[in-house]
């Protein structure tokens, strides 16, 4: 039972990381980056390439994945977001970026899943009566730390406050001297950096697979919807909720059901609490 809880927390943490990536970009630029899960997938593939193909030391692999995905995300903002004004057109272009990364990954690394080795011990340990791999604990801990750090950053630093200001009212932030464009670029690049650095950490669990992105994109989105758009702690809790729902249905029903159950949860949340558990309702304004 405890083993099941550990695996739920692990997979939930991955979804929470996707939701966090959506949130960072969404808060700073109002864009829903459909391709964020693809950026994370790219990080995992780069971890595979660095560790298995090129046999680089782990520190170099972290840097490599971080920098490449950082650049990819910045490029996405410059090419697919900045020249496009309409929100629906931005959705189309981010779907385009997602499709492009999916296609490229499939072309370069093939369609079958590749195993990414864990960089430290691979010995199962028993914690609170449940068997768990060290890399699983690292994923869970990293996620919690990342979310807490981002929360502190957004409340305590000027950049964080500027991002909140943009989310609240873009025009008045502009008038206050916030460089909205540079922050949007920065948020994309930062989310890319994060996605790249996480590659070697989540890779051992998720495998480097071309189908990875679609799955975590959707489940990460459900985590986001449960937690509320723009809420960092909401995304964390939402991720864990989805993780538990998926693992428990897979265990106690059968493998056809997790997607259906998670979809039903999504519909229920959107119908009953469209602003999520942590999101704020806003009054409409002319």
């Amino acid at each position, binding site marked *: 039972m405890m083993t099941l809880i550990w695996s739920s927390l692990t997979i939930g943490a991955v979804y929470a990381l996707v939701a966090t990536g959506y949130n960072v970009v969404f808060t700073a630029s109002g864009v829903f980056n459909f391709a964020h899960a693809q950026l994370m997938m790219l990080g995992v593939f780069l971890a595979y390439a660095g560790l298995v193909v090129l046999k680089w030391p782990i520190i170099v692999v972290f840097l490599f994945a971080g920098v490449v995905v950082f650049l990819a995300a910045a490029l996405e903002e410059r090419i697919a977001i900045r020249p496009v004004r309409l929100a629906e057109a931005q959705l189309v272009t981010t779907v385009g970026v997602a499709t492009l990364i999916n296609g490229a990954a499939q072309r370069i690394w093939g369609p079958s899943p590749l195993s990414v080795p864990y960089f430290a011990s691979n010995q199962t340990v028993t914690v609170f009566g449940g068997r768990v791999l060290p890399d699983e604990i690292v994923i869970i801990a990293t996620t919690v730390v990342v979310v807490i750090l981002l929360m502190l950053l957004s409340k305590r630093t000027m950049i964080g406050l500027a991002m909140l200001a943009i989310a609240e009212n873009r025009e008045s932030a502009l008038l206050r001297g916030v460089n909205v464009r540079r922050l949007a670029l920065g948020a994309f690049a930062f989310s890319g950096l994060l996605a790249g650095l996480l590659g070697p950490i989540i890779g051992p669990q998720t495998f480097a697979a071309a189908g990875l992105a*679609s799955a975590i994109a959707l489940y990460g989105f459900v985590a986001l919807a449960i937690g509320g758009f723009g809420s960092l702690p909401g995304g964390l809790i939402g991720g864990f909720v989805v993780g538990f729902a998926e693992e428990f249905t897979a265990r106690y029903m059968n493998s056809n059901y997790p997607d259906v159950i998670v979809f039903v949860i999504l519909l229920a949340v959107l119908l009953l609490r469209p602003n999520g558990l942590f999101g704020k309702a806003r*009054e409409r304004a002319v």
Partner: protein
Amino acid sequence: MNTLSTRLKSVPSFTLPLIAAIVIVLLPQLGLSVTNQRQVLLIGFLTLLVSGLNLSLGYAGELALGQPAIYATGAYVAAYMGEHGSTDIVLQIVAAVAAALVVGLLTGIPGLRLGSWSLAMTSFFLVLLIPDIANIFPGATGGMVGAVGIENGTFFGVALTNYGYYLVVVLSVIFWLAFMRNLVTSRHGIALRVMRQSPVLASSLGISVFRTKLLAYALGAVPAGIAGALFANLDHYVSPETFSFALAISILAASILGGATSVYGAVFGAVIMQLGPSVSTSFQQDALIFYGILLIVGGVLLANGVSGLANNAWKRYVLKGERATRTKHAASTEFHFPAMAGAKLSVKGVSKSFGGNVALRDVDLDAEAGKVTALIGPNGSGKTTLLNMICGFYPTDAGTIDLDGVQLDHRRSYQIANLGLARTFQTPVIPAGITVAEVVLSGRYSPERVSIAAAALRFPRYWKVHSHDQEQVAEILDIVGLTDLAHEQADSLPLGTRRMLEIARALVSKPRVLLLDESASGLDEDEVARLAMLIRRVRDAGGTVILVEHNFRLVLSLADTIHVLAQGEIIASGTPADIEVDPRVLREYLGVKDVDAAAAAIEADTTGPQR
């Protein structure tokens, strides 16, 4: 050039598509091979899917990635019927469309609540679920193996031959495209375009934004359902593999390529996406990369796609000649202004605060029919807040607002608009890409209704309302002096003209209350004079006018009653004569210390002090 363009214009716009349709219907008779007939059929299915997406993406501005799921629903429904002896293809189509609508509504309602990305995700999720659902119901769907044993389709009891089936498919596509064309050229099409650009404007015209978006999305499911039923009869075999996410992406790519905001663009897009991949085998492998680049470039560059280019060319070459030959039509000053049924608007004890900020405190205000009621006050005094509460954009904290005894507060803005409240905006809200006449027409949405079905199938009701529309739009354009500009693009007009256009749009709905939000600002003297004359005419015709204005002189000359707001409270109410000399008004609003001198200055008819 000129004669050519006139001749071109006199040809109905559906002529070319009609000729193309007849040719396609006859192709097998002209010796098209069976293999190529199959390509035509596949293009037909894809056209239906893309066309449905165009309705939600291009017209309603909602990205729906779920077309494959709706397609699958239609296909499985038809397959199930075909396996169990209901082989009539018409019946199958009807059942498939019904099922498609149910799935569309079920996923559309929650998906639309949070904004466009939310619908994109829920509909994307739907596609991912297809194999799971197929596995959960192996009896009905055949699971991953697929549904087999679908009997040959019949048409009212007659077994379908190959050519019979071909005809059913092609005619279904033609019928759908005609339906779609009629829909988007009707007032509903204009309503969709208005809503896409300004939800606020749409709701103040009496259009329910949520319902209209949902309708467009749900209607977009109809052709996908039809396509599904037709597809099940192609090979008499349906399996989950067909309905992949790659299909969703190629539908989206086809939509962008052909132009999302178009009717026939779906055909272009479908042809390219169907025939393109078969050109080279290496393409299959790189299809995703190609689609990805296409979507990025398409999203950035060609917002309107191939058919947008064609449309622009048409406008440039054919309509240009017409513009030159048009004669100048002077605004008439003698016109018949129809009687208006004004209603009494009462605001009683209304308060509103945002957080700790009190915007309005215990405001009372009455506006009578046949009178001009003005609301003045310095910036930040709460005028716009009050206006927005009357229109239903903010809920009130306390107090009531009613229209001839009908309570307005806590109704939605589009419901209030439908009760007969029309407004203009401080900054004119004129959607891009539609003509002056169409802008005015959008104001006719609430007074006289036409259902979607009546509009798309051109029922007599549609033609009746259509002729009323034409008459009244022409009449109002004449009154405001914009007849010359009727076919110009509305958003490129100068500010003063756009303000007049907004008033025309409000007047054409025959409002019971007309709310003018700073309509005189930015107008030159002639325009102000014309505005004043219009307001007087509306008043004399029995309309209720509420004027929110900064132009003190205009207000003094027009209003029957003036209410002065300062810091969220009404500090004075009365006739222009009272207000003009009210010391508190002069101090608070006009900011003068020496009250006598200021009163004398106004007396001496200087330009109205403005802040």
